[in-house]
């Protein structure tokens, strides 16, 4: 056999080997992603969308019911000074609980996802997460914020933050994702100074450098906060 023949046979063997590997890879990929798996994923997405629609509808109904109750209370209060005094007290308590809309001077903080690192498959550090939102909210409350809303969702005394990478769930609301806006009413100079402090919110600061997460803020002489539109029930704690 000539050296030319030998070379072409070897080339054929290499190409056949490569074909085998690629074919095996393809078969494996198809086994991992059968069409029913995609269908199941789509079914999950549809479930989430339906539940979110129900959630939004319930919150609209709650807001409407609270409005109707307020009107009925107002009518009753017009007939009695004692009822009026009670109503004023409840109105004040509702305002502190976040159950009524408010406005005043404040700041608007914007949080946006950064840029994925080279090993983005394993890292989600570039995504805004619920702990980032929690840290900003806590910072603003510590600086005297009198009311806060996160992307239109009002924070209450019982509010909690949760979620997975890139998703922020507040109380019973559907998940929020970047960009997220935290709006606070209060002493805006104090809040702005705290947001400017490089030692504050260290978790976000580190990821601003590593993943270019965006945190920007702006003071305003008049910012509006919506009323809380979800459940604020306590079923286990009773006054002593």
């Amino acid at each position, binding site marked *: 056999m000539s050296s030319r023949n030998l070379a*072409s046979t070897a080339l054929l063997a290499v190409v056949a080997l490569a074909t085998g590997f690629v074919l095996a890879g393809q078969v494996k990929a198809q086994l991992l992603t059968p069409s029913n798996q995609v269908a199941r994923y789509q079914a999950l997405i549809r479930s989430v969308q339906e539940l979110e629609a129900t959630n939004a509808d319930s919150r609209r109904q709650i807001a409407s019911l609270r409005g109707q109750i307020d009107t009925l209370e107002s009518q009753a209060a017009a007939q009695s000074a004692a009822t009026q005094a009670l109503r004023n007290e409840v109105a004040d*308590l509702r305002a502190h609980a976040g159950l009524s809309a408010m406005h005043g001077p404040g700041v608007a903080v914007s949080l946006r996802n950064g840029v994925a690192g080279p090993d983005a498959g394993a890292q989600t550090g570039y995504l805004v997460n619920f702990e980032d939102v929690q840290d900003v909210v806590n910072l603003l409350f510590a600086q005297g914020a009198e009311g806060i809303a996160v992307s239109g969702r009002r924070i209450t005394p019982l509010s909690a933050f949760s979620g997975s990478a890139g998703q922020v769930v507040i109380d019973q609301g559907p998940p929020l994702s970047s960009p997220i806006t935290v709006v606070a009413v209060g002493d805006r100079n104090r809040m702005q100074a705290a947001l400017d402090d490089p030692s504050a919110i260290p978790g976000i600061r580190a990821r601003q450098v590593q993943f270019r997460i965006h945190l920007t803020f702006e003071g305003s002489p008049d910012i509006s906060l919506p009323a809380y539109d979800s459940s604020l029930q306590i079923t286990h704690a009773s006054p002593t």
Partner: protein
Amino acid sequence: MPARPKTGRRRTIRVRGISVWLIALLVALVATVQIRSQAEVERSLIGTDPTSLAFLIDDLHRANESLDAEKADLVKQRGQLQSGQAGAADQVLTDEANRLRAIEGLTPVHGPGVVIVIDASGLTALDLQDALNNLAAGGAEAVDVNDRRVLMGVPVYQTGGGVTIDGAVVAPPWTISVIGDANRLGLVADLMTQQLRADRRVRTATYRVESDVVIRSVLTEKPFVYAVAS
């Protein structure tokens, strides 16, 4: 006759050449299909993985149940107000005031829950904030840390002297009393204490579920300085 073997060799070479090109073409085709199928999968799965979606569905189910309970409660309140009975409005308003006072930490409360004790050195305000958020996400209705009432909006701050709650230093060990669904809070406390015990700064982290946790600490209502009702 001498031309025959030359022609045969040429044919063999041509056949081999065509074979190589055919196989190369096949490789290119399969590789393209492979790359494209991977891209399709990535595109369709962009965002959330199925496990996270399943958790999200669970959370949304629970959230929607809470919203249904709230709607039922509000419908009941509206019915009472519409009844026109003497004192109905006063009763609704008094109940609402009592409920809101408990939510805002203005009155002592009691109920089932858990008591968590954490003895550690070097834990920061961020650690306490995370713990409080975990408990709130677990349905905490009232929380007290070392006789200080805590809820969202009460400043938990890091100072040179340690962690402060509403301006007062809370030195370790931290005793966190929580009222809420004892089963749910028990699960949260179990997970929290397990994680804390793995932390080098923590000496001990324990919890107990109690049928009646009493929280006597209260907050003082702070009037708004900047906010105005819309």
